[in-house]
């Protein structure tokens, strides 16, 4: 298979404009003749569904939650980047592009990233017009802050609930189209298979999560905006329901999966408190703007933070990275936290935590200002830990937060299956090996509001689509496959719950394919995953039946997919003999312990092709070239 990213030629500044002009258009009167399926209703899915409906397409939008407003985009806290340069501090489209390519450790496609930076400014305008209540200055202009890893203030925010407000904006736009009759919203329904006919994506098979009914839906194009796969780790900052099933089943139908080992660990989460823990809670990294990170200089120092004098504290990020200090990118901050904890200098009962201290900021700015900036985060922290962060420093530890990998897409956001488009976190496209803070919201909305609505038109206008119906054998076969899997899961009646398997799988992946990885560890992980997977299929206990709401059954299907995906992640991590961004192979580091890239051999996107059950997947490489941002070792010193 030859991977064609279909990137535009010519100067990067003009690339997207030229591309838009060259793409074919669908006549306005013909748009209503096309049916489009959108799976997922987060920032990417909701914005895409709403925008395509505005253009005149008929859209069916699916989500597994009870309402599209619940999608996990809602939990994003910190903000959204845009190259507005409202602060007159030297920002520009080129700088946002440059920062994103560099922050992604030179493993992203340049033209995609440039387009993202260009569109960033339109997103803010669109959201303001929708009534998103962004933070404002007293004069009424939009407020900005600087955010993890950026030296300019380009992040727009709505208190610590930016994702919520942007999602509600997109959700309202979506409901407006529901009202207009252009979107049929189908909640509490899960996509369980993709239907490919004559090599094109032509529909999906779903399960109604209340009645258990398996149904087929036909379409002229299918869009997946189903988010990331962080829950493969069991403990992550993702919502409990976030899953990889839609993209995984599409992978098994022929869509290539790119860079699965590129996962992001967020440095500022609340540490694990016990083995009953069901998820981890992120504290926005905007906290790092004013909080100072430290651990005791002594190992196993059990004194309370107040008892540790200034001279015996190690502000290790400020010490090692004087110019970026506490604002180094996420992967760097996370690895350093792990390193000091591995040295035995971690804090809290488990020793897996570092302090994030606001006492200097409170002294400098006053409690009121800090409360205004981070009030809801402080409240959340206190609610969970029972400690008051105005008085005691917070304890934080890294946790899995975002997955840069995902289904491979070309410049038009189309996967290797014609007619299957993948947007938002579900695709791999813009963040390379590491995503910068406040860029996920930007990418989700860029894909949904401003990229996909153009590129999908080009596909529809240039493709001959036969009339089909759900009686075709392809649909019947997919339905039967789904029914069979449901039956199998319900018939095992073993001795272990789905969650116990998921928890154990998560531990393996976190241990061997988490913050740092080694070849022997990954090989071991692949074996362990395979044997646990075998046990799962022989010993899982799913009660109830398939004709009703059955949360264990839903979960079982998702965990079954996580097993397979976990193995692919490890294979990808093993194949990539370098360290870059979120992928840190212990064998490949500089003498100072920084990630050591290998541009000569690994400057490519690793796209994996499914080769059948229990077959080793086939690796395809999309070479990456850098014409504008010359690869250099990232240095935040």
């Amino acid at each position, binding site marked *: 298979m030859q991977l064609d990213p279909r990137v535009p030629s010519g100067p990067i500044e003009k690339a997207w404009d030229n591309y838009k002009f060259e793409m074919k258009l669908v006549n306005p009167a013909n748009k209503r003749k096309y049916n489009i399926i959108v799976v997922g209703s987060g920032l990417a899915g909701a*914005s895409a569904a709403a*925008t395509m409906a*505005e253009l005149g397409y008929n859209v069916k939008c699916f989500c597994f*939650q*009870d*309402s*599209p*407003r*619940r999608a*996990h985009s*809602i*939990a994003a806290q910190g903000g959204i980047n845009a190259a*507005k340069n*409202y602060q007159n501090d030297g920002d520009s489209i080129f700088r946002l592009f440059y920062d994103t390519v560099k922050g992604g450790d030179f493993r992203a496609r340049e033209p995609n990233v440039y387009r993202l930076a260009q569109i960033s400014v*339109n997103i803010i*305008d*669109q959201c*303001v017009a*929708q*009534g998103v*209540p*962004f*933070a*404002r200055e*007293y004069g*009424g*202009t*939009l407020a900005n802050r600087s955010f993890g890893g950026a030296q300019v203030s380009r992040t727009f925010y*709505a208190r610590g*609930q930016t994702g*919520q*407000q942007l999602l509600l904006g997109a*959700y*309202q*736009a979506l*409901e*407006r189209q529901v*009202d207009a009759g252009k979107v049929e*919203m189908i909640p509490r329904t899960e996509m369980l298979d993709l239907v490919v006919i004559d090599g094109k994506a032509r529909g999906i098979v779903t399960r109604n999560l*209340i009645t258990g009914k398996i149904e087929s839906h036909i379409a002229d194009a299918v869009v997946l905006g189903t988010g990331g796969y962080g829950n493969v780790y069991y403990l992550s900052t993702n*919502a*409990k329901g976030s899953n990889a099933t839609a993209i995984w089943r599409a992978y098994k139908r022929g869509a290539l999966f790119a860079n699965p080992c590129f996962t992001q660990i967020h440095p500022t989460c609340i540490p694990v408190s*016990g083995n*009953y*823990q*069901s*998820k981890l*809670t992120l504290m926005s990294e905007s906290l790092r703007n004013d909080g100072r990170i430290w651990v005791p200089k002594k190992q196993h120092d059990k004194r309370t933070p107040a008892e540790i004098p200034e001279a015996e504290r190690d502000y290790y990020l400020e010490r090692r990275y004087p110019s970026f200090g506490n604002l180094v990118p996420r992967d760097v901050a996370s690895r350093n936290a792990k390193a000091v904890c591995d040295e035995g200098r971690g804090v809290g009962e488990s020793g897996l935590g570092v302090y994030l201290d606001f006492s200097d900021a409170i002294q400098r700015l006053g409690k009121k200002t800090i409360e205004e900036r981070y009030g809801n985060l402080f409240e*959340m922290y206190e*609610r969970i830990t*029972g400690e008051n962060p105005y008085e005691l420093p917070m304890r934080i530890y890294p946790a899995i937060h975002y997955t840069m990998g995902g289904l491979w897409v070309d410049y038009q956001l189309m996967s290797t299956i014609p007619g299957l488009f993948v947007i938002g976190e579900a695709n791999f496209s813009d963040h390379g090996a590491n995503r910068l803070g406040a860029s996920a919201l930007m990418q989700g909305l860029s894909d949904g509001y*401003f990229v996909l609505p153009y590129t999908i038109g080009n596909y529809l206008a240039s493709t001959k689509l036969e009339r089909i119906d759900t009686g075709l054998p392809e649909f019947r076969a997919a339905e039967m496959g789904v029914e069979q899997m449901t039956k199998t899961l319900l018939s095992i009646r073993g*001795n272990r*719950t789905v*969650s*116990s398997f998921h928890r154990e799988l998560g531990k393996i992946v976190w241990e061997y394919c988490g913050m740092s990885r080694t070849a022997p560890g990954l090989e071991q992980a692949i074996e362990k995953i395979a044997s646990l997977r075998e046990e799962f299929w022989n010993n899982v206990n799913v*009660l109830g039946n398939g004709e*009703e*709401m059955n*949360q264990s059954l839903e979960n079982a299907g998702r965990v079954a997919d996580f097993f397979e995906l976990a193995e692919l992640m490890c294979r990808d991590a093993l194949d990539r003999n370098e360290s870059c961004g979120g992928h840190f192979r212990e064998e490949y580091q500089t003498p100072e312990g920084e990630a050591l890239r290998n541009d000569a051999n690994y400057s490519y996107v690793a796209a994996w092709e499914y080769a059948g059950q229990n077959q080793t997947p086939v690796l395809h490489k999309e070479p990456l070239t850098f014409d504008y941002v010359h690869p250099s070792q990232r240095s935040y010193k």
Partner: protein
Amino acid sequence: MNLTLHVWRQPNAAAKGRMVTYQAKDINPDMSFLEMLDVVNEGLINKGEEPIAFDNDCREGICGTCGFMINGIAHGPLPKTTVCQLHMRHFKDGDELYLEPWRARAFPVVKDLVVDRSAFDRIIANGGYISISAGSAQDGNNILVPKQFADRAMDSAQCIGCGACVAACPNASAALFTGAKIHHLAMLPQGQPERKKRAVRMVAQANTELFGSCTNIGECEAVCPKGIQLEVIAAMNRDFLRATWSERREPVASD
């Protein structure tokens, strides 16, 4: 700590429900309420009993998916807290807890503690938005919004749509939910063109969904996990009244 739970079990919308008693043993005070239920459910599955169904997703208090009554209080005893953020340290060893789904005609029970809140989506679909299609926006700073208005809009926009307000209201009114959206958009210059029509349509839809009327009791405000204030209901009534004499086009459904 050990607790006794009385939980509403109802296999589906059509079936009759009943309270069933379970023991929650060896509960760690640092667990969240939902983690406690996870532990109970794992025990049930291992005994061959079907686990208790409850809605949940982000477990960070922002998605609005979770929520049920604990001893008659929506989201339980801690103010401004969803059940997923409610930790067991707020309960005592030996406590007896009654868990019931949201009860309102407009929120039919789906299973156990899970209810159908799609009525909220339909209220939003009836004007709970600003009509602006992608591509037609002007520069974000062209219209200045005084900080205090943006802040007040944000106060109301924080609503997570969990439905606690409805569950707590003796009339099962959706006034706090509906008012929050009307107030959020009414505070912003961008929300002005459709302001009156929005108020009429949303209020009418809430009536159509068989939510009750507001009689200013204030239970909704007391249980709201996001601290949405009663004033949004006043704001809604103001916009609705103004609109009914100046803008009304369609009749307002009464039931």
